[in-house]
């Protein structure tokens, strides 16, 4: 339980909260919404991970191919799409939720991708 919320936590065996890191601010947090915990426990949703590098690559790819700059949080989902798409049929339908815009992350993108201003 952290900050009044009972959910999954990144913690050690003594219950001390683990330090975290993510290139995206919104995911740089040791817990997650109780709804997600519930969706996981009931088997309604599957949870996967993407690295900072995969995320930045995904954000860049989407921006370059579609002109959509996703929030870095959302880019984690785009990274998963990139991983899964090659194993799918052209007729399969994939929906990815771009939960936020990446205007706020342009600074991070420039820094990490070393794009000259």
């Amino acid at each position, binding site marked *: 339980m952290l*900050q009044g919320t009972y959910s999954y936590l990144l913690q050690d065996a*003594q219950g001390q*909260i683990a330090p975290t890191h993510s290139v995206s601010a919104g995911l740089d947090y040791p817990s997650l919404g109780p709804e997600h915990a519930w969706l996981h426990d009931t088997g309604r949703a599957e949870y996967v991970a993407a690295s900072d590098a995969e995320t930045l690559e995904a954000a860049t790819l989407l921006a370059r191919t579609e002109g959509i700059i996703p929030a870095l949080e959302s880019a984690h989902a785009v990274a998963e799409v990139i991983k899964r798409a090659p194993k799918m049929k052209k007729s399969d339908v994939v929906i990815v939720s771009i939960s936020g815009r990446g205007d706020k992350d342009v600074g991070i993108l420039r820094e990490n991708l070393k794009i000259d201003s």
Partner: protein
Amino acid sequence: MPLTFYKKPGLIVYVTCGDPSLATTREIVLAAIEAGADVIELGVPFSDPVADGPVIQRATERALKQGTSLGQVLTLAAEIRQEAQSTGLIIFSYLNPILRMGIEKFCKVARAAGMDGALVTDLPVEEAGEYLRAMHQHDLAPVFLAAPTSPDERLRRIAGASRGFVYAVSRTGVTGQRQQLTEDARKLVKRLRRVTKLPIALGFGISTAEQFAEVGEFADAVVVGSAVVETVERNSGREAAAVGEFVRKLSTVSPQPSAIAQ
């Protein structure tokens, strides 16, 4: 073992266990008891002490650097109990370390260590069902916090779930010493008196003998935390002696012998 206050006001001392080391905490606690503390709150350091100000935050960091854990605090507590038969001992912790250990296991170990009760900082009464069942089953007193912002109905619920004493928080905000106690403190104790017969301990912000005496006029016990923790911080190498001196100065202000037993 009943939580007993041997004088009015009783004195409750909080320490962050493991700062600077568990061995030193043992000495500090024994010195505080010798100097007049009726109850000791054995603080378990937690990575995210949201209710604590800078003094206890720093102590927590130092304790965690040593790897101080709930398990170790319980072991230390049992040792202290061996040497202090008539002092109230309470485990003071945030909820997560207790959840990680398991509420049932925590209660079992705490009871075996001879603890009188526990105070879980961030566990509201509304969410305490499982905890209360386990505490009662193991004959441990659950202590809860009442705040000046708690409405009367909630104070009633808090008092109803409490055993041993009710911890009235003197003001909103985090732990830490203040120059003046607010009127909130007096008002809160008055409101609590209407809903409980348990002793009422007042804490947060108390550091001087004058404040101790003032609070003693309307509360049954006074909790001193940050002031003690800061005394430890400022007296590296002679922590126990310094705490003993500090506690003695506080508790000799109102020598009114009285036993408020529970």
